[in-house]
């Protein structure tokens, strides 16, 4: 294992690399096709570089523990808007998630529908490409259209185009209060309809999930206390046609509930493979019916978490659909056999392969992780 302490050290290391490398931050997200290669850890590149609460910006080295970033923000009453999921419980991993890992995997949570994904809050990156060149893109300001946006390209590229060394975010104020509205006993179709009404309301719903096993549909409201009370009331009125609404307002309970949802705790420690499917919300119930396993819905119905028997090729079962399915948790053998990431139409796959070849000419960065 190698663990560079500086960006320039990492640059030298990559320029002189003799074989494939498996890039890790905290090592908590072993997703994708298993990579055979020497472990390259970025944990040595750690620390918050700059934090300006009055400008809503934070810059940190990629190996900085996520917890450290979140604590610094919390101390100023701010937060990362996109609510990054913690994969440890679901994937049965240990270690400390890093901010670079969050970016590499473009990890978001329930608030993604309202506040955008990780890539939407990300405003700057520094990375070292497969040839050892140090590249910066974006910066520390929110409004920036100077040159091509490689920031987005790096988000969710799982370390296959370059090794992130520094990331910058636009952050937001953390709300004073939050409430969960809960509806009971809705069918999947009714739930998606209710969530569409809620998300199409002016009440700024920041979470909309449906848990078939609990028979619950959940909506979240966040903001100043008086405003939360008002909007929760108005939203409850709007939801009346869908049955009785319970409102939960204890800060601790609300946080706990959405964290459990965010981290898909229901499938943690359960036997089987876990798939993550992104579709248009109203397509959710139809897709779920074709899955046939245990499911839960987030993002108003557009994000489906599915638990299916080990080794199931879910894509074969789903057939063609508009969206993408990722095999998130499975035995290494299964992840070697079934493409973990949604295979793309030929022209897009060709573009992706060309990008990979130009950013990593020797194919040393997480080879095969995303595309064979």
């Amino acid at each position, binding site marked *: 294992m190698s663990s560079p302490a500086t960006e320039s050290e990492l640059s030298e290391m990559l320029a002189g690399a003799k074989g494939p490398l498996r890039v890790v931050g905290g090592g908590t997200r072993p997703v994708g096709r298993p990579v055979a290669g020497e472990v390259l850890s970025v944990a040595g590149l750690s620390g918050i570089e700059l934090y300006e609460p009055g400008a809503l910006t934070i810059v940190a080295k990629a190996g900085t523990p996520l917890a450290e970033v979140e604590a610094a923000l919390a101390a100023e009453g701010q937060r990362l808007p996109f609510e990054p999921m913690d994969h440890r419980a679901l994937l049965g991993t240990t270690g400390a998630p890093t901010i670079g890992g969050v970016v590499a995997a473009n990890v978001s949570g329930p608030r993604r529908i309202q506040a955008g994904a990780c890539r939407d809050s990300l405003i700057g990156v520094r990375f070292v490409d497969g040839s050892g060149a140090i590249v910066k893109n974006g910066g520390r300001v929110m409004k920036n259209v100077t040159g091509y946006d490689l920031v987005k390209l790096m988000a969710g590229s799982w370390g296959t185009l370059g090794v992130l060394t520094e990331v910058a975010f636009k952050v937001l104020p953390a709300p004073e209060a939050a409430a969960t509205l809960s509806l009971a006993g809705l069918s999947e179709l009714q739930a998606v309809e209710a969530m569409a009404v809620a998300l199409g309301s002016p009440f700024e719903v920041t979470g909309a999930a449906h848990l078939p096993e609990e028979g619950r549909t959940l909506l979240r409201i966040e903001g100043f206390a008086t405003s939360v009370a008002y909007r929760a009331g108005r939203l409850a009125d709007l939801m009346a046609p869908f049955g009785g609404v319970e409102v939960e307002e204890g800060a601790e309970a609300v946080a706990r509930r959405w964290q459990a949802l965010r981290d898909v705790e229901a499938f943690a420690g359960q036997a089987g493979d876990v798939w993550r499917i992104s579709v248009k919300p109203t397509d959710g119930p139809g897709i779920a019916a074709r899955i046939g396993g245990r499911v839960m819905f987030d993002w108003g119905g557009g994000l489906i978490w599915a638990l299916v028997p080990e080794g199931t090729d879910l894509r074969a079962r789903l057939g063609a659909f*508009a969206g993408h399915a990722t095999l998130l948790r499975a035995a290494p053998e299964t992840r070697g056999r079934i493409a973990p990431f949604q295979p793309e139409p030929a022209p897009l796959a060709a573009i992706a392969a060309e990008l990979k070849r130009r950013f990593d000419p020797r194919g040393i960065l997480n080879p095969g992780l995303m595309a064979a």
Partner: protein
Amino acid sequence: MEMPTPDAAILSRKSKIVELLRAALPKAAVIHDEAEVRAYECDALTAYRCPPLAVVLPATTEEVATALRICHAEGVPVVPRGSGTSLAGGALPTADSVILGVARMNKVLETDYDNRFIRVQTGRTNLSVTGAVEQEDFFYAPDPSSQLACAIAGNIAMNSGGAHCLKYGVTTNNLLGVTMVTMAGEVLEIGGAHLDAGGYDLLGVICGSEGQLGVVTEATLRILRKPEGARPVLIGFDSNEVAGACVSDIIKAGVLPVAIEFMDRPCIEATEAFAKAGYPMCEALLIVEVEGSAAEIDAQLGLIAGIARRHDPVELREAQSEDEAKRIWLGRKSAFGAMGQINDYMCLDGTIPVSALPYVLKRIGEMSKEYGLGVANVFHAGDGNMHPLILFDANKPGDLELCEAFGADILKLCVEVGGCLTGEHGVGIEKRDLMETQFAPADLEAQMRVKDVFDPAWLLNPAKVFPLSVSRERRERQVAA
């Protein structure tokens, strides 16, 4: 402004190229008469002009693909064009290029309120996207000042912003999918009504690529429900520094206004003379707008007023009615028009960290004296996106050059303090030659690699974004090929 020498071989083949296009496309879609193509010789950066070889105005994605295939086979550069409102020269033709304009492609293809998206042809104007959904109380959030005229195609090319992006984000945060035709004429479907990419985020790199990776013909856009209401407050201060500190304190207090706009004294005076919005005469003025129900607005404005009072404002004016709200915005919205009445001006578009605001304004004031050219500042203070307006006299020899040098100095200053050259207008040709002040060679190389993948022959929107010296090797390789 240096532009590449037009390819004589292409110029000499003009009639053949035009014939190929006319044979493959509807007759009305191809314009080649010298007087008619002149209408396309520039965009909103009118200081630079060059009539193109020909203009193609397709009606469908298939026609766009046909035109691109022909140009690709003939090695003819193509300049994509939306409504031609670019302030950066993003749609400036070259003499050997074909303009490919999507202005006739303005249909709404699909509207879906349950899934909160609209799919449109990209020639549709920004404001008419909202127009198509407002009967259901929905809207499309990005709101560039040119929204009445500018096309979604150009918004995607430049990743346009607007006054309300502090809360709603810019184009890239509201774009779900595109249909894009590559220079080789291949039609790609990227993204869609679902969220996030299954592989690399190609959508993210296409948005803001200034028409250099492909021609986007259709777009799936996120639409949002309109808030219950919105109300601005106007706050006047007797110094720029204090106004800047107030912005920072508002943000730190946990309120997220949808907009925080800033105007300095020269700008206030000019707009007041022009629009008579009843602005107070002071050194700096903020317009802060919040959204929600009446009670929520009251609460947020109460909080903002409390913060503002700690900074001794010379004026604190809350809109009490729709009419008063309109008057508060009237001056800000007519700022550019007002400046245009007084003078020729050049509008810049740098972004700075909000904390650097007082220092940057002080330096701009000093430079204004050094250059002997006036400056009025108006900008989106919440996100640090500045629009200094440099006043000059277009009829005075040397004034434009002086103004450009001053503008370049301001943009370099933006980069020095940790900001960037352009926040929402794009690089185009205007900021092309400053790119090396913000980016190291490896940074530009990484960006050009992306262009190599999508447009290996470097035919799309030539001479934009990258300094000619930086892209020379690639361009010459193509000419040789």
